[in-house]
């Protein structure tokens, strides 16, 4: 049961993230929700890669034990960088919209629909 706990956390965090994106009307909060969702994806990947008693594949004076291929950790680092870039881009859009529309509420940003 205890080993399943991280997966439960992943589902919870992802749920919070998706709910924030869907329910909040404020652009900044929506972007925060996206950040939370990215965090849950990272937690999921890191949890998957954990092997009990495994050691990192660094060969110089390595202790006895099973080495674990660190693909998942590499994926997580990549995703953190991608998430950073996405958040930066979205926040830049939010700044632009605030300058042009004077608001970051989604209710006010609907000029395209008219």
């Amino acid at each position, binding site marked *: 049961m205890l080993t399943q706990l991280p997966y439960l956390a992943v589902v919870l965090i992802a749920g919070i993230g998706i709910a924030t994106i869907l329910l909040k009307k404020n652009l900044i909060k929506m972007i925060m929700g996206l950040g939370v969702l990215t965090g849950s994806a990272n937690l999921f990947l890191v949890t998957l890669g954990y092997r009990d008693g495994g050691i990192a594949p660094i060969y110089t004076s390595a202790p006895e034990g099973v080495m674990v291929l660190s693909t*998942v950790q590499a994926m997580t680092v990549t995703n953190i960088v991608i998430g950073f870039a996405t958040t930066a881009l979205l926040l830049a859009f939010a700044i632009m919209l605030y300058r042009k529309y004077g608001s970051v509420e989604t209710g006010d940003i609907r000029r395209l629909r008219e």
Partner: protein
Amino acid sequence: MSQYVPLLVALPLIAAFAMPLVGMLGKTIRNSLAIIAMAGTVTAALLLVYEVLVNGTIIYAFGAFDPSLAIPFDSGGVPIRILFVIDAMSAFMVLTAAIMMFAVVLYSLSSESEQTGQDGYYALLFLMMVGIFGMVTTGDLFNFFVFLEINSLAGAALAAYRINKGLSVEGGLKYAFISTIAGLFFLFAIGMLYGQYNSLNIAYIASVIDLTGLSLVALVLMITSLAMKAGSVPMHFWTPDTYSSAPSSITAILIVSSMASLYAIFRVAFSLYGVTMNVVTIGWIIIILGILSMFIGVSMALPQKDVKRLMAYHSVSQIGYMLVGLGVGVAVLGDTQMMNEFGLVAMEGGIFHIINYALYKGLLFLIAGAVIYRCGTRNLNELGGLGHSMKWTMGFFIIAALAIAGIPPFNGFASKILIYESVFIFNPYISVIAMVVSIMTLASFVKVFHSMFMGPKLPQYAEVKEVPLPMLIGMGLLAALIILFGLFPDLVVNLLIEPAALAFIDQSGYISSVMGGI
């Protein structure tokens, strides 16, 4: 081992990051760099396609001299390196992307010539090409995710590039949100597959996959997220906003990137899962998504007044045709008799429609861009009488409009007839719906043609003249290909489409091309 594979990604990547630096030296030098990089990438793409068609599937292992080193001898038969796998289907997508890139870069040289910030524009344009070429050639799931994100970020930034009082930013924001959420869902699915099979390589996972509950969840997540990126109903709401607010040349490239997502749906369905999943259910889900896209797309397009918004709704509707054609292929996968009878033809129709759609839809958006470039408005009620002054543009519009409506002898007809004929045997109702949608498409484009080009010359457009030569060359290239593909469909189908469809069906061939004899 082909040396053209890395060039496909490396050339545009170097060009993208060199662009802001070279831009400091002056406009002419930067534009020449854009042309040289574009020509180099397109040449590499064409040579690669030729090589694949002659020699069959090409494997490129990053960091290894020899593709046989893709699976290190002490890894226990698991591919560890990142692989690019270019089979006939990938080659076909590379060719589509290369043609569109060529046209768009030429067109941009004029259409963007009076705008600011062109260094960033070309840098993002080339980054986007990196994403598209990577998505269609990679044989590794996580690598695909990275290219998907490169493509999404560059695409969103480009869609919002001309701020246009905030309108473009609105469209770009929607695109960025949708593609990021889609990307994260895809990443969850990758994690689920990695947790079970300890690999990211598509061919390796395909060789060991069985349909556990977790694999099924992963399949659903992948198809949903990619359909979201491709812009099919019911996740289509971003397409009209983003396509209509982005610059026209960018919309043409966004269409190629949605094609790359569509390709990935079927790469997952055919090559990754194959017959292990319940093909009939998944096939029907894809077909129903396709029918809904066709019908909802075209009925939303009919009342639009904004020319680009109208065209954007038509792209939702056209994606439906490809989903139906390839969905029928999924539904009869594993049943040799039905596959030979009509499944293969339906898939050929769907695949042929990918390149045809990219050509005529790209051309339509470039024409809309040309009209906006000269007249400054996109409202169909304000436009009129342009046939007097923009004769070439009008000619190209007639070609593209007849092609999208499926009138012979243009390319839209060639692929639609393949879909009609074969889907009719599968289920006649789908075929009837597809034809009705085609008629509605024609109706809507007759309206556009009439309100843009017909009528007396309007006084406010008296100064309007034909667009500059590079824009005409870009559009003319696409128009020429539309006519060529429409006149000689047999040639194209035999040379490109049939190998591509066979590559999709032949899952064991895909696996053994990577895994070798293991």
